């Protein structure tokens, strides 16, 4: 059997004889010390083994997975890999497994110790904990590798440490939700009107998202290795995510219209959020759109789709979901603090149009610099700093003008948000026209 050359290269580098001996020796010494240090040694060893496996796979593994492509770009070996005969799927799994093989080596030893030492009377079985660590690690490692690939494509390879940054983002944004699920007193979780056992649901979710992350990495690798693909997989993922999140909003016995609205609003929220995420992580320079424009002008629709970034797909889906949401908007959505937000699909979408316009205004500049940082600054000012200061200063009208969803009247919110969108579109149109004039001079 022929070993995948990329996996073999990684194994040459990761699994040296010294490392193969050192890892079990160090781990066994740590476990032995914990075991002899006090009472209930076996249970303490099991807890320590779970933590060590989590740290090895979830921290070290994520760091290595995030840097595996970036290191190649930095070492200037990535072009040779892109020209090689290794297919995108082989490259995906060999990079994902190979770059973290040493972390998995240690992690699997720790998981074996966990399974051997955990008491049978734990509220959650050791096998479930081990499965959660494995699924969560695969998810985080694949996401880190994907983020690394996106960073490399944006030409930011020198910045590095993408896995660490991703871990921080996951801990800050996803961590509270996962911790809430894990430590909730509820025995089960309501999802799409049914109740699921908490740990089973979490394991199912983690496994499902891990599969999506690996598939996303494979698709991204296809693009990197010049395999022609169209963005249907991304659209499918958005639909899946919208369906997954909508399930949490739907109470048992919810009416047809509420279910439909939850689904459509979820699709809009997911597509909108992914539009921002993709804008920040994809190539957004003017050349990308010039290329698509040329393809369309020549009637090469298939090629245009192949070269289209993912954010316009998310944007188009957000637009479609917004129109549908506006059509199926229920008369009463509920009486909570989020009511205003949920009842304002069109203003929210118009603000997205404005933000896309502003982002591309910066991105299409001839000498673009720190587009993402500039955009974060303006988003913070527009959504948080100025409306917050205006509210504190009792200038409610100013806060409403900047953040139209604060208007009580839906009509006023839509009108002002449309003005915002107009400003964004005008900025973008001006920049696009000025580029076209510049083209002749080049």
């Amino acid at each position: 059997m022929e070993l995948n050359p990329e996996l073999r290269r990684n194994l040459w580098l990761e699994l040296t004889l010294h490392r193969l001996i050192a890892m079990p020796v160090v781990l066994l010494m740590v476990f032995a010390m914990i075991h002899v240090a006090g009472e209930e040694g076996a249970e303490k060893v099991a807890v320590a083994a779970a933590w060590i496996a989590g740290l090895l796979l979830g921290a070290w593994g994520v760091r290595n997975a995030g840097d595996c492509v970036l290191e190649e770009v930095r070492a200037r070996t990535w072009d040779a890999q892109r020209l090689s005969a290794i297919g995108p799927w082989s490259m995906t799994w060999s990079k994902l497994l190979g770059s973290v093989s040493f972390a998995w080596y240690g992690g699997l030893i720790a998981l074996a110790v966990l399974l051997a030492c955990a008491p049978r009377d734990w509220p959650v079985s050791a096998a479930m904990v081990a499965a959660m660590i494995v699924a969560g690690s695969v998810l985080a490692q694949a996401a880190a590798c994907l983020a690394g690939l996106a960073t490399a494509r944006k030409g930011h390879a020198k910045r590095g440490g993408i896995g660490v940054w991703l871990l921080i983002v996951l801990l800050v944004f996803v961590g509270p939700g996962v911790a809430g699920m894990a430590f909730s007193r509820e025995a089960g979780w309501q999802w799409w009107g049914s109740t699921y056992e908490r740990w089973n649901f979490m394991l199912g979710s983690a496994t499902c998202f891990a599969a999506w992350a690996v598939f996303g990495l494979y698709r991204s690798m296809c693009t990197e290795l010049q395999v022609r693909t169209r963005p249907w997989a991304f659209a499918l993922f958005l639909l899946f995510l919208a369906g997954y999140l909508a399930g949490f909003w739907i109470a048992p016995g919810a009416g047809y219209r509420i279910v439909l609205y939850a689904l459509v609003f979820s699709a809009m929220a997911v597509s909108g959020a992914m539009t921002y995420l993709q804008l920040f992580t994809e190539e957004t320079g003017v050349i990308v759109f010039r290329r698509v424009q040329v393809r369309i002008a020549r009637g090469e629709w298939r090629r245009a789709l192949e070269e289209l970034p993912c954010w316009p797909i998310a944007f188009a889906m957000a637009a479609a979901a917004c129109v549908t949401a506006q059509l199926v908007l229920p008369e009463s959505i509920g009486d909570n603090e989020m009511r205003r937000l949920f009842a304002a699909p069109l203003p929210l979408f118009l603000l997205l149009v404005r933000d896309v316009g502003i982002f591309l205004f910066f991105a299409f500049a001839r000498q673009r610099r720190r587009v993402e940082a500039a955009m974060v600054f303006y988003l913070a000012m527009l959504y948080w700093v100025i409306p917050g200061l205006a509210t504190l200063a009792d200038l409610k009208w100013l806060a409403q003008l900047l953040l139209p969803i604060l208007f009580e009247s839906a009509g006023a919110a839509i009108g002002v948000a449309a003005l915002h969108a107009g400003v964004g579109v005008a900025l973008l149109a001006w920049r696009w026209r000025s580029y076209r004039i510049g083209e002749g001079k080049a």
Partner: protein
Amino acid sequence: MTAAAITVAGLRFEYPGVRALDDVSFEIQRGSVTALVGPNGAGKTTLLRCIAGLDRPMLGAVQVAGVDVLEEPRAAHRRIGFLSDSFGLYESLTVRRCFQHAAAANGVPQDALPDTVARVAARLEIADKLDVLAGELSRGQRQRVAIGQAMSHDPEVLLLDEPASGLDPEARASLAGLFRTLQAQGVTLLVSSHILAELDEYSTDMLVLRAGRVVEGRALREKSAPRRRMRLALAAPVAGLRERLAAAVVAAIVDADESGALLELEGGPEAQARLLAGLVASGLPVCAFAEEREDLQASYLRTVQERAGTATP
């Protein structure tokens, strides 16, 4: 099988606000060594990356060994070896493992790897370094390993971007020898370099790129019906030399003064011998008569000057 190893048609590539390649079209014949020359920023590296299928052009078509690079980039990669000007090596691997990885990654079967490694190492005269870490090699040796990796799968076309930069004269001479050997084995080479004297040693064709456009593409050494320039030097000045030559010699007079002339001759050594005999028979005090070969540097500068002259209103 098409005659051309590389066919580029109407290639356009843009960077923001700059057209790096503008309607670039040319053909490169199989088994040739083409020098890709031009000033900094002319688009040489961008062109090589487009041919290799690493960067996607905005418009145009590229074929390598009959395979459409834009339609089937993966199939084209099998036929291409590419050495970037900023190549990298896996520093922590030995040279043997670098070659093994490159060959296996490029589709060489497992059982053929040892032979492939030995053959590539011998070709690049680096067999004695096979068990040395790539990170411990000198600049010239690293360059050889990088070229070895690029040709480990016996590609039909080798694209080399500044392959001799940073090499000492000995390493350059050795590299030139390698390129001549590869050419003799039927490999087509497209080599970009600033060191024109070095390119002159092995190039058969020249492609001049300037501001993203092909200024000229032509053979440096014609294989059939050669038109050669012969420099005639006289031992003593002869008044009215141009007229005497016009009357006695069957050759075009490019330039002449009292002490010598530059003649253009059609034909091989026999024609050259006949011309010399005619010159001596006409009583001219011939002290030297030799082919004046225009080197790549002169050819490039002449092309650039001619184009500049054409461009001047």
